[in-house]
């Protein structure tokens, strides 16, 4: 406790001479208020949760491919739900539920946005730290607590939440309906409530930091696209996460205090419940009011990272900077008015379905602009195939493939027959799951030297990791579209109850084999990551020859980032391969980039981007 108290005693402001404090192990590695350490904490917690989430998917992929086979691995991991190697149907539903929850919230929201917003916002805007280091620390520890609660829920007697990650009531409200809706669901809701508090504290901090702490000369139009993406992501989070909180609160009341927000006319386990007048459709509205913006909370930071990594490694400015910013803003705005496309056949008024079809297909326009701009960024570049660059290119590929099938799902008439089938599963895994993971991995490979004091990850292992992953990801999710279009619903423990689907068995086997290989190669990544933390080769201060401010900061982590004064900014973040007035050489001879803190040179034109 004394250590904890000390944290509060630490002065939070710095003068420009980089004054440092004595730090103890606890203040440096555990209750740290330094954004760089918090970012690493987010990343490692996120990776840990990711390992669990992905191993869960391995278990249910095995079940789907060989439903009649007995797997000892089920008995080892699932205990009483895997007796004799046969997976229990209820634990199958629990696995898909927790897999979804962990991947969406704990890995792709906290692990992605939490890691890179924390690392890059202060470093790239030229700030000593977040606006509030203390709130930032609280934000991480709330996330940690919510992860613990979520993991704890795996061990309750009746099993973890198993109503799907969308936890639609009444299934999620009534323990009579499914065992996982007992203590497991209570813990799920508690965990998510804590998670929302964490996310809000983090987001408010990001917003305030970007607005107030930009260094001299860093106007909004000179911000790197990463910062724009994190900034707008935080705004969407602040707008939509509280709505999920209210939905969770109302669900808790329906479950525990006998209210009827979402329940009405229910006869279950031989008796009529007293609930009257509520509507599950209301819950769906509240859930998706967060749920849809959530997919953009997941994908926008990845887009920002990809834009940055792609420009740097193409040695070219990002194409259409203003259009990229405008499309981020357009996507953010539209993302809050498209939630109904998850509910075309929920029983809501068909006219509302028409409205949501319209807004949904609108959102394809800024997405298309972004994809074309990325492709044009590559055009006539001098592409440096670092691992981060490969993942960025693959991001554009999966984003296009997954995004295109969105045109089908967003069209209410077409949605009727593919709704809730594997077609949807394939679509969202490619467009937000795999794509956002690629964004996360690109970010890790690119900023690893910044996170771990100049050490670099092995490029050879990186290449192996990349190529196997990118082939595997398509191998899993491309065939999955066929399963969906054959009419197979998702969340089926087994399709053996329908002989009609018997001929899908070999597709399921193919998908599972690709999944096993893809999951196995992630071990290479984990080894590369942890090995490089301690034994990675120390690289140059600015290994990728990037223009942004984080590479001017000290390699060794100091509280305050820059030992001397904070650099001022004189140009945008994308002066790659800019030529001098005579077009004889680069502006700085022999160097194909001009860092943001370099003043305008005599031999260059000032361009309006």
């Amino acid at each position: 406790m004394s250590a904890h108290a000390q944290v509060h005693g630490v002065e939070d402001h710095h003068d420009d001479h980089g004054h440092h404090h004595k730090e103890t192990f606890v203040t440096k590695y555990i209750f740290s208020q330094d954004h760089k350490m918090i970012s690493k904490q987010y990343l490692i917690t996120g990776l840990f949760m990711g390992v669990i989430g992905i191993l869960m998917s391995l278990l249910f992929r095995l079940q789907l491919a060989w439903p009649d086979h007995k797997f000892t691995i089920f008995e080892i991991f699932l205990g009483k739900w895997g007796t004799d190697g046969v997976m229990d149907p209820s634990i199958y539903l629990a696995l898909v539920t927790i897999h979804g929850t962990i991947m969406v919230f704990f890995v792709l929201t906290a692990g992605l946005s939490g890691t890179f917003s924390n690392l890059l916002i202060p470093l790239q805007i030229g700030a000593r730290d977040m606006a509030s280091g203390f709130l930032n620390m609280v934000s991480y520890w709330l996330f940690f607590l919510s992860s613990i609660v979520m993991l704890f829920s795996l061990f309750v007697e009746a099993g973890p939440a198993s109503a799907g990650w969308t936890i639609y009531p009444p299934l999620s409200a009534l323990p009579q309906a499914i065992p996982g809706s007992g203590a497991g669901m209570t813990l799920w809701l508690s965990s998510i409530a804590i998670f929302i508090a964490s996310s809000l504290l983090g987001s408010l901090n990001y917003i305030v930091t970007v607005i107030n702490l930009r260094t001299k000369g860093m106007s909004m139009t000179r911000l790197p696209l990463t910062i724009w993406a994190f900034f707008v992501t935080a705004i969407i989070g602040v707008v939509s996460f509280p709505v999920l909180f209210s939905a969770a609160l109302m669900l808790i009341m329906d479950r525990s205090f006998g209210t009827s927000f979402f329940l009405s006319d229910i006869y279950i386990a031989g008796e009529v419940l007293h609930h009257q007048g509520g509507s599950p459709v209301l819950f769906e509205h509240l859930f998706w009011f967060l749920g849809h913006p959530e997919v953009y909370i997941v994908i926008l930071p990845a887009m920002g990272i990809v834009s940055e990594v792609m420009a740097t490694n193409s040695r070219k400015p990002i194409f259409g900077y203003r259009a990229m910013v405008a499309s981020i803003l357009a996507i953010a705005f539209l993302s809050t008015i498209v939630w109904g496309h998850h509910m075309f056949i929920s029983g809501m008024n068909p006219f509302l379905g028409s409205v949501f079809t319209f807004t949904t297909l609108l959102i394809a326009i800024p997405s298309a602009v972004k994809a074309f701009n990325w492709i044009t960024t590559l055009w006539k570049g001098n592409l440096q195939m670092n691992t981060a660059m490969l993942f960025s290119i693959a991001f554009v590929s999966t984003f296009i493939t997954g995004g295109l099938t969105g045109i089908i799902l967003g069209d209410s008439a077409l949605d009727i027959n593919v709704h809730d089938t594997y077609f949807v599963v394939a679509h969202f895994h490619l467009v937000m799951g795999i794509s956002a993971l690629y964004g996360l991995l690109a970010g890790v490979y690119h900023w690893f030297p910044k996170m771990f004091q100049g050490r670099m990850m092995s490029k050879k292992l990186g290449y192996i990791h990349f190529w196997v992953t990118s082939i595997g990801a398509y191998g899993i999710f491309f065939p999955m579209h066929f399963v969906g279009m054959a009419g197979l619903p998702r969340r089926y423990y087994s399709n053996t109850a329908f002989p009609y689907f018997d001929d899908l068995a070999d597709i399921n086997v193919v998908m599972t084999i690709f999944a096993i290989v893809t999951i196995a190669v992630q071990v290479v990544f984990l080894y590369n990551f942890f090995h490089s933390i301690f034994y990675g080769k120390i690289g140059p201060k600015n290994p990728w020859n990037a223009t942004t401010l984080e590479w001017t900061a000290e390699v060794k982590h100091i509280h305050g980032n820059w030992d001397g004064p904070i650099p001022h900014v004189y140009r945008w973040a994308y002066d790659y391969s800019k030529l001098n007035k005579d077009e004889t050489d680069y502006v700085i001879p022999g160097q194909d980039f001009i860092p943001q803190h370099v003043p305008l040179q005599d031999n260059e034109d000032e361009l309006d981007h």
Partner: protein
Amino acid sequence: MTAFLVVLVIILFGISVWQMSRIFQLAQVKPSIHSEIASDKDNNTNGYLMMGFLAFMYILAILSFWLWGDVLLPESGSEHGSKIDNLMLISMIIIFLVGILTQWLLHYFAFIYRGNKTKRATFYADNDKLEFIWTIIPVIVLAGLIIYGLFTWTDIMNVDKDDDPLIVELYAQQFNWKARYGGNDNTLGEANVRLIEGVNQLGVDPADPNGKDDIVVTELHLPVGRKVLFKMRSQDVLHSAYMPHFRAQMNCVPGMITQFAFTPTVTTAEMRQNDKIVDKVARINEIRREKSVGLAAAGEEPLDTYEFDYMLLCNKICGISHYNMQMKIIVESEEDYKAWLATQPTLSEQLSK
């Protein structure tokens, strides 16, 4: 002396060669690149692999269609279904064209512009004209799709009462389906879960005269060519009535009545003759025969031979047996349907038993 001079010359020559080689060595720009940063060789290898990956994607797509093209649903068994299929086909063609083109551009650029020490990237920051073009093209294409889609959607969802549709209630509960016909008056009696009692499992109001002739069944029979208006109810949790062969789906929500209407156009007997279905059934039975051999060896019951039937599935997670919540649908001629219905007891008959 001469020997000394010769040795001296040789030594000096040796030194000068060594010095020259040093000069060449120093004059040469040392490869300053760090071993974990992509070298030109890496750029080259990965550039070629990008083209390889493009080929992999195209081959995967072609292979998938070749191997699994026949698992897809057959032609629609309902009137509106062909409109959906048509729109689906148009959307798919657009998607594939755009997909093939953009993936090609992406990977081809990644290949052709792979980095090299001697290359110089082009500083190309924006071009309003280009960006306008690729904003307006999606706008036009999507506008077309939206308009087509919305007309189709409105057409499907708006039920014209003048069509005199057959009224059928689909009743969902964990984990089975029931259907209730309106009887001679084609009107369903009022119902509520609070009235569930004994054989009255659907909670039909015994006081409602409309309910007397209602008929509750566990196998859905539909007359071909007549519009059917389904009224959906659920007694416990959310379910979704999914009839993939009719391109029909609607959630069943406790506390409210949802609806969906379609006109079946192909009888079960006709669908069993459909080429795709014939092939599919043959394939499935082949798989089942192979499996039965294994089962017989293990001393277990062999699998039944499969025959095609339309089906109603639950497509909203509803509990442990969600994966096995189904009802058989039979589409038949008006006469067969009427004959079948006549054999089913009405609700009042059931209640008075």
